[in-house]
């Protein structure tokens, strides 16, 4: 019931097909993406290089002064292994003036600003490189809302958003992402010593199994508890998923007319292509 094992060859075929089709049908042939040195963006980069050819992928490293050297090194490993185009754009000098304006700014605000600064760079390079911005958020992160709205979640298309973190690991292994990237502790690297699992308070292994039951298998909270998950854990995860729904939808438009975008003006983005 909680076996999240995927058929990696099949998923690889679908996701590379998705990237290629959705970028080319809108008249583009290239992709732009942030490469953090972490696993999600590494996998997205592998998929994009395979889908579009490495010469059509621009991977951008955007370190802040406190970013770990490992992050930069690991991103470079991926760039070198794939032969994708790359750019390094330190964000320190861009965000520092805003930080200094509010001397008591805490980590969360700074982290959000950094994530949004990176978004600005990606979408600017999207224009310059004539490529669409590839998202790198996974299903676990999207469900838990563990991202910055209009920051790291901003993209033109997302190939890995329906894969749980543990499935991202499995596909990454199959595609040859460097071991060191797969095995290190996941981190947003927004401040020193930050890790996802430390901040969230549980491991991806645990929460993925729970989310798989709740979301994919439609278990009730009670059934999850009966399946062996601690009641507090189940409750807190459900609350997290619910409270972060706002990050997963477009802002609601107040309906006053007979036909309103989002309610009764319904077209796929692929309309006409």
């Amino acid at each position, binding site marked *: 019931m909680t*076996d999240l094992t995927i058929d990696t060859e099949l998923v690889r075929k679908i996701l590379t097909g998705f990237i290629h089709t959705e970028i080319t049908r809108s008249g583009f042939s290239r992709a732009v993406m942030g490469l953090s040195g972490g696993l999600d963006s590494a996998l997205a980069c592998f998929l994009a290089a395979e889908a579009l050819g490495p010469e059509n992928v621009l991977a951008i490293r955007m370190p802040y002064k406190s970013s770990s050297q490992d992050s930069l090194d690991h991103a470079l490993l991926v760039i070198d292994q794939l032969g994708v185009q790359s750019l390094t754009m330190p964000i320190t000098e861009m965000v520092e003036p805003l930080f200094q304006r509010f001397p008591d700014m805490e980590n969360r605000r700074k982290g959000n600003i950094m994530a949004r600064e990176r978004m600005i760079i990606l979408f600017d390079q999207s224009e310059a490189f004539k490529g669409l911005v590839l998202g790198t958020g996974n299903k676990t992160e999207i469900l838990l809302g563990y991202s910055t709205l209009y920051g790291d979640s901003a993209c033109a298309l997302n190939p890995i958003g329906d894969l749980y973190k543990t499935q991202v690991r499995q596909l990454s292994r199959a595609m040859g992402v460097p071991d060191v990237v797969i095995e290190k502790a996941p981190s947003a690297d927004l401040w020193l010593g930050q890790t996802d699992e430390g901040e969230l308070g549980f491991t991806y292994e645990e929460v993925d199994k729970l989310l798989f039951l709740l979301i994919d298998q439609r278990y009730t909270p009670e059934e999850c508890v009966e399946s062996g998950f601690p009641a507090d854990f189940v409750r807190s995860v459900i609350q997290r998923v619910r409270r972060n729904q706002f990050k997963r939808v477009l802002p609601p438009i107040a309906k006053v007319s007979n036909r309103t975008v989002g309610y009764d003006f319904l077209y796929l983005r692929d309309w006409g292509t």
Partner: protein
Amino acid sequence: MNLNIAMVQLNTVLGDVEKNLQKHLEYIEQARKGGADLVVFPELSLTGYALQDLAPTVSHRPDRSDPVFAPLLEASRQIDIIVGFVEEDDRNRFYIASAYLSGGEVLHVHHKVYLPTYGLFDEGRFFAWGDNVRAFDTRFGRVGMLICEDFWHASLPYLLWLDGADIFFFTSASPGRGITGSVDACNSGRLASAVWVDDINRAYAGLFTSFVVHANKVGFEDGLNFWGGASVFTPDGEQLVKGPEYREDLVFASLDLNQLHRTRARLPLLRDERVALVQRELGRIIDSRNK
């Protein structure tokens, strides 16, 4: 007697009927050159699948005065054609429809009866449901057509079988899903939904000792993937051909219609089917529900 068919695993331009029509005419010509007697296009092949508010703007009427059907009907003088489209009836209801064209005429139109409106599907919001299912005669014998969700309900293939269909033409725009789960599907290189469709089609072929032909769309629409994998199952429940998955392609198959004789001589399920019993029991069940 052999029936040579060609199944088109078509990728479509969403909502652009003119572009899709050109592809149809090209594939029809290729199928004809390849020796096919009949070419089968998937569900909504002239329009693409996830139409939403595009539905009323891409509708057509299957007759000679229609600019899209005129060239298709002309082409059907050379080769029979099954095509998927949105039909607007004379009271302006919109249907997901399949038309069988032959000898310059429309032999039959099927309106999709079961419109999935759950999960990722929202067809009931945009379309009217069809209200009948009929087998019909072609130059290759009596056949029936169903569209995607129609054959997820066992009653419709069963009715076609009783109505005389020996060949079932199923067409789909089936969004692929399911990358974990059943032992069968996992690591077979196939999606759970694709395995499931082939399983039920094999079952229909075997249980109804008939041919089942399935043509499915390929490509992406936003995040939805369509897997193709056209297939034919024989009256023995054996897979005759299997098209590639995730690739636009024209898949040929030659159906030895004499197999119907051989299989039904061995396995007289049709002969032994007790239709009156079914009717009697259905009547009882419906009556008891109404009490």
